[in-house]
């Protein structure tokens, strides 16, 4: 196991390196550089600009620039935002918690729905419940997130007027009060449900197949013949096998959540990283853009690392030899 862990972490080093090179290349291809973010007016004296470029090292060879950039990034300096004139880390820090909150809520709700329904439809195959659940998974699997989010917003926000259509909290609410908390919650409901309801389909299908495959195994028959009550056969014997891979998928989910956050946050104008990304792209604020891509890529790499470790702890066959 220790050997596997070491190998798995070693694999991450070249991955991180390639990721950083890729983002550095993209950042270099983007119009504007560290200097244009600091200049107050665009019509500065060319001589001053040349001096500044020299000072910032923008005329250095590309590999020197890369090493300086990566060195800064490791020390938490991601540059200055071009439009907001504040360090990118500060800008991201403000929004990070909103996105983390939304992602955590989406994950919790989607598993809270998927686990009972997946198990039930696997346990009572071909029952009416199973048929409805299967139908539901077909629809949610096929529906694109952005259409679903728009429909949810139209239905629950504009037609039924149940939940707010945008933002993360009522601007008038005072932090710390109960109202603030309630407002935060109501603003979270629609973005969370939009992401979570669609995310359930793969988990439900996985669990259903898993339960169907497991319930005909010998050890289940043994448990039954010993007189274990049916509910315990499921909770203790069948589900034990299926829950750990489900838990391990959490890490792989991160890539999906990052992509989803771009859509959901832009539709519900939820001030998180996804919306910051789109805004920065529109304002050509490329220091922020490359920082966000780097963070997302890093988060996804960490997520797969986590998943691989959990999976290999559960199932020794997966370990790389």
């Amino acid at each position, binding site marked *: 196991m220790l050997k596997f862990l070491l190998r798995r972490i070693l694999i991450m080093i070249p991955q991180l390196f390639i*990721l950083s090179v890729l983002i550095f290349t993209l950042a270099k291809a983007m119009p504007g550089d560290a200097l244009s973010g600091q200049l107050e007016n665009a019509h500065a004296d060319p001589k001053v600009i040349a001096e500044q470029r020299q000072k910032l090292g923008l005329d250095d060879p590309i590999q020197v620039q890369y090493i300086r950039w990566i060195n800064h990034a490791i020390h938490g300096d991601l540059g200055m935002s071009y439009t907001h004139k504040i360090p990118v880390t500060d800008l991201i820090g403000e929004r990070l918690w909103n996105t983390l909150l939304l992602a955590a809520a989406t994950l919790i709700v989607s598993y809270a729905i998927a686990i009972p329904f997946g198990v039930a439809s696997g346990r009572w195959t071909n029952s009416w419940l199973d048929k409805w659940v299967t139908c539901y998974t077909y629809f949610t699997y096929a529906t694109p997130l952005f259409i679903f989010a728009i429909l949810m917003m139209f239905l629950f926000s504009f037609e039924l007027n149940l939940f707010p259509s945008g933002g993360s909290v009522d601007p008038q609410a005072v932090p710390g009060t109960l109202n603030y908390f309630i407002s935060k919650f109501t603003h979270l409901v629609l973005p969370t449900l939009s992401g979570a309801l669609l995310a359930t389909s793969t988990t439900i299908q996985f669990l259903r197949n898993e339960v169907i495959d497991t319930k005909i195994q010998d050890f289940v028959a043994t448990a039954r013949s010993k007189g274990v009550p049916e509910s315990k056969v499921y909770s203790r014997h069948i589900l034990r096998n299926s829950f750990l891979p489900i838990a391990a998928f959490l890490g792989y989910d991160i890539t999906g959540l990052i992509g989803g956050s771009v859509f959901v946050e832009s539709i519900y104008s939820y001030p998180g990283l996804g919306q910051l990304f789109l805004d920065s792209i529109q304002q050509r604020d490329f220091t922020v853009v490359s920082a966000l891509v780097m963070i997302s890529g890093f988060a996804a790499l960490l997520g*797969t690392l986590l998943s691989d470790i959990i999976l290999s702890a559960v199932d020794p066959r997966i370990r790389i030899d």
Partner: protein
Amino acid sequence: MMRLIEPLNTQPVNSEEKSPSALAILGRELVKDKLAMASIIILILLLSTVYITSLVLNQDQIVKIDLLEINAPPSEDHLLGTDQGGRDIFGQLIIGTRNSFSIGFLITLITGIIGLTVGLIAGYFGGIADNIIMRIIDFVLVLPFLMIVIVCATIVPKFNLWTFIFVMSAFLWTGKARLIRSKTLAERELDYVSASKTLGTPNWKIILREVLPNLSSIIIVNLTLNLAGNIGIESGLSFLGFGLPESTPSLGTLISYAQDADTIQNKWWVWVPASVLILVLMLCINFVGQALKRATDARQRKG
């Protein structure tokens, strides 16, 4: 050199004893599945209407801004009304569906070919090539795909249809390659491959004539489900404004007008038809794909 085993083979194999090919099974199962058949009929009707009508429609006429007819509700002149630029919604729907489907189809085809080639080579030969290819695939799969495509759409000068297809394909072949590779890996260990090798059949012939046909049903299922997914990704990116260039009508662009509070509440004709069209397209393709998937699993076949 005389072949010693020749006499044994003179008796022709009775065609009735031959088990049906994978493709024949897929076809047979599809016909038996009512939902899938209905989906195929809807798809054929929808797509033939779209492709035939788009030949008649004048795209320049449709994308031309008409300030006198902004946000007009459905009327005789404009079957489904107009959008905020006075452009006819019905015409945009037809061209948008054609664009979305064609692009989805092209991307599926390109990624299918790349994924198949890479997957077959990695899976069949194994070794160092396989190791390197898998490292690359694992890496690309982890990348924040959506963000990088959006960045490319912004920084590539003259971002057009072909660059869009290229960027999308550059990322989307990996999932297929991984699937084909794992299936080829399992297939490689089977006796018929060893037998062929012993007889001296060249590797390319084993791959193309023997392994590939055995994977055909899995490939078809995967490509069908991917087609729906790719249409979704294309319209999603156009929805965000980073898909097709603005001058090209797209279903995603029409839906993006719903981000305006007034449009979503009062001007249903702008965004509802496009949403319904995408949903119908994706559901139908998925139903066909799911039916095919069931057909590849002997336990779930209808008979």
